[in-house]
Structure formats: structure tokens, C-alpha cells
């Protein structure tokens, strides 16, 4: 727990990499953590099966912002197949901090959104979409 707010995490939070909207994204995906109301929008620019550009916007805690910053760094320039196989475990390793169960959703917000973006790409081509909410009234 004491390791959660390491310098590089705070650094990524203060100055996140790849922050800002993309000009012409192949896919735009919004994710939300309803527990805290935080949202992130992730955009990928895919050319010839390679993630050429990536950007995110939104607000959130240090963990979610640092995680998005690290994740976008990681996938930029990678072939889609590699991005596909980038798992939750890989992201946790990249973060390099002990995440308690209560903060797992924070760490995973960017990754869940990425997975949504990828299936959106696969299914319906490059269209804007939203995270689906549970059934309700």
C-alpha cells in the first residue's frame, strides 16, 4: 500500500502521456467507473493493423490516470495482435505497484476501455461507442 503513490505514478498522473483527443481516430471508446463517477475516453488510430496513434481524455484518480498513461505508451506503435494479447496482468506488472481489491477498478479502467475499443473495432468497424450499462429502468 505504501508503494501505491510512487514518484513515477504521481508523475504520470500530473503529466499523463498521450493525453488529449486524436484528430481522426479509427475508434473512440468511453469507459466509466460508476463507483466514483470517473470516465475516460480512449481513441486509437489504426493503420495497416498497427496502432499508429493513441490518445485519451477524461478525469480520474491517480491510479486510473497513471494506468492510462502507461497503457497508451505501451500499445502505441504495436500491431493489433500484440495489443489484443496485452492482458490485465501485463498492465498490473507495468504499473509495478500493489493494487488492493478496492482499487482494482481504477487500475483496470483504461484496460477495460481498451478491450471495449478493440471489440468495437473488430465488430462494427471504426465507429464511436459507449460502454454498455447494466439493464435498468
Amino acid at each position, binding site marked *: 500500500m505504501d508503494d501505491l503513490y510512487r514518484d513515477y505514478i504521481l508523475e504520470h498522473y500530473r503529466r499523463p502521456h498521450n493525453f488529449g483527443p486524436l484528430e481522426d481516430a479509427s475508434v473512440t471508446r468511453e469507459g466509466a467507473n*460508476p463507483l466514483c463517477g470517473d470516465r475516460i475516453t480512449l481513441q486509437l488510430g489504426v493503420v495497416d493493423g498497427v496502432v499508429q496513434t493513441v490518445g485519451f481524455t477524461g478525469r480520474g484518480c491517480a491510479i486510473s490516470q497513471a494506468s492510462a498513461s502507461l497503457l497508451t505508451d505501451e500499445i502505441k506503435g504495436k500491431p493489433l495482435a500484440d495489443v489484443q494479447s496485452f492482458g490485465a496482468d501485463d498492465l498490473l506488472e507495468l504499473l509495478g505497484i500493489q493494487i*488492493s481489491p*478496492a482499487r482494482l477498478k481504477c487500475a483496470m479502467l483504461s484496460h477495460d476501455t481498451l478491450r471495449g475499443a478493440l471489440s468495437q473495432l473488430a465488430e462494427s468497424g471504426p465507429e464511436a461507442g459507449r460502454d454498455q*450499462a*447494466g439493464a*435498468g*429502468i
Partner: protein
Amino acid sequence: MTMTSEPGTDAPGSAADPRIRDGRLVAEVIRADFPILGTTAHGVPLVYLDSAATSQKPLAVIEALDGYYRGYNANVHRGIYDISERATSAYEGARARIAAFINAPESRELINVRNATEAINLVAWSWGRANIGEGDVIVLTELEHHANLVPWQLLAAEKGARLEFIPITDEGYLRQEVYAELLKLKPKLVAFTHVSNTLGTINPVAEMTAQAHAAGALVLVDGAQAVPHLPVDVQALGVDFYVFSGHKMLGPTGSGGLWARRELLEAMPPFMAGGDMIRTVTLRASTWNELPWKFEAGTPDISATIGLGAAVDYLTGLGMARVRAHEQELVAYALEAIAEKVPGISLYGPRDAARRGGVVPFNLPEAHPHDVAQLLDRVGVCVRAGHHCTMPLHERLNLPATARASFSVYSTRQDVDALVDGLRDVQRIFRS
């Protein structure tokens, strides 16, 4: 500390565990884990023979409650500080062990409820109101506890549905040939008890479920008297809904479970609404949380669930097959001892101990069951008298009331002997 307050510290049935000898429970040793069994009533040692109403609790359960309130009491799910995270993992860990105890495929299929009654009402209000319509048939039995009867009466009255009942034989078995006929009505639901709380009848759940499914019906089984007393495997039984009460299985009051197949739970509308069961809320509309939380509105009974987790650890340590063998043996002993030594007594329920749980209903010819219970209390023997929440069954048996002795893991032949002695005393008093 009891030996099992830390699950897994001693292998169940290992030579190190004095509670098990030659593969059998040693109730005399087990009793030491239950503080109340060392107390007295009216100056005589307590002989508790009302475990079907509620069981006593081992130290491991009492200490689980105590440990929570002294050490890490906090609300669950939403706190990101130490004690709240500990409370959450204890609460969810208990759920997982409770689910595993009945071999649920996934722990998110296990909804924590106050008791079996709430579980059945949840299904009736949520699944029932969404799926039962006018003229639909629900098949119940004459054996049912009011908990598995009245909610369906309310639903049927609201929806114009029809209730049909599987009758029983005089011994207390369900008349399977009538059940087969009733299935031709294409019921939407068949709901019945796994073990009768009044007669002890153990119903053939797997067979009846297969038949119901073949006829297109879903099956709800009331396991309130089964989960505490015999191995229950919801997958092997094949049922759709299964309910039980924690307080009857060594756990605290306020604990219990509804298990249902995930697809059913996912399709069901919520029952109670409020905090924790939602995903998003605006002033005018809401969306629901994932399973299991969709059905757990508000602050749950955290301590009760943690306590039930400790109870299933304790039972697992004993081994449910051994628990069943112990109680079956005791029922056989009791039926024989009572019939032999208490002249004129009427005993009800299946004569075959292999087909009945640990409950022994009876009536004396000379005394009303309430007087019997009251006089037994004088000698420290606790039995129940009345209709045991099965009025229609008593009506069917043409009995206004019965007295009932019932067993659990800590029950002994000495308990039965004390009951027999007490009954002979009652006869003396009433005959004199």
C-alpha cells in the same frame, strides 16, 4: 479457540481431530465446541432437541462475530481503508465458501439473504411476478413449510395462477404417481422441500427435478432442513433455485442463502432497491449492479454472513456425509427407544431412517403436545410443540399439533435417553 476456528489447520478426519473416530462423529467431543450445551435450565443440564427450529452455535461462529466487531467492523464494498477492505474480503470470502458448501458453480450465484423465507419471497416477487401469468400452474406439496406455501398463494392471488399440490402417503412420502399426473398440467414451477421439517421425509430431489424439467417446469427446492444435515450439491441435484437458512446450520440469525442458476438471476428484475444494488442512478432512472449485488440492496448483514462462513467451515471440517450418518443413526436409535419405552406413543413420518432426516415428531395419548413440551422443559429437555409452520400438513394428518425432537451434530444418545425418561415422567404425571 476451537480446533476449527481456523479452517484447514487440521485435516478433517485426521487422527489429530478428536471429534471424528473411525470415520464417525463423536458428538460427546463436538459438544465441547458449543458453549450453550454446558449450561443448565431450571438447574438441570440443557438437553437441546430443537435444532430444526434453530441450531446452537460453535465457538468458532461466536468468535467470528466477536472478531469482526472488535477488530475490523466497517461497511463493505465502498471503503478504501484497511478495516473496510478486510470486512469486504471477509464478507465476500464467506460468500464464496457458502457457495462452495452447496457446490454452486459460481459464488456470484449465491445471494446472501436473512433466511430461507426471504429467499423464497425474493424468487416469488422477482422471478414469479415476471414469469407467472393467469392460469399458470405452480406445483407444491402437502409437506411444505408456510415459507414455501404462502408466498406462492400471494403470487397466485395476484396473477390468477393455479396452485396444485402433491399429496402424501400416511407415512409422509410424496405420492410420485400423482406428481407425474400434475406434471401433465405443464406447470411453470415445481417448488418443494428437500427435507420435511415436520416428518423428516427426504424427498428424491434429483429425480423429481429431472421429471419437472422434462415437463418444462423450473424447480425451486427449500433446503432449510437439508443443508444443515446432509451433503447438498446443487449441480448434482440439477435444480434451478435452492434456498436455506444460516441459523439452522450453526450460523447466526440473519444469515441464509438463495442460490439460482446465473441465467435466471441475470434475467430477473431486482427485488429490493437501494444502495449497492445499482450501477448508475439518476433522479429518474437507474441501472443495476452485477450479480450477486443486484439482489443485495443496502448494507448487508455483514457479521451474520461472516458467521455463516465460519459455520460452513466448521461443518466442512466435520464432513457432511459424517453428519448425515450421525443423525441417521440417532434417528434410528430414537425411533426404536421411544417406541419401546414409551407405551402408547404415536410416532409420525417415514419408518425408514435412511429416508428421513433428524426429526422425530410424536404425540402422547394422555397429554397435549404443549403440556408435554412444558413438562419436558422442567427436566431441561427442549422440544417443540405446535404446528411447526406446517398447518396444512397437520390438517392432512388430522392432528391439531405434534411435539417434535430434532437433532444436529452435537446431539447424542444421552439426549434421546433424557427425552425418553422425560416422556415417561410426563405419562406418570398425567396418569396418576
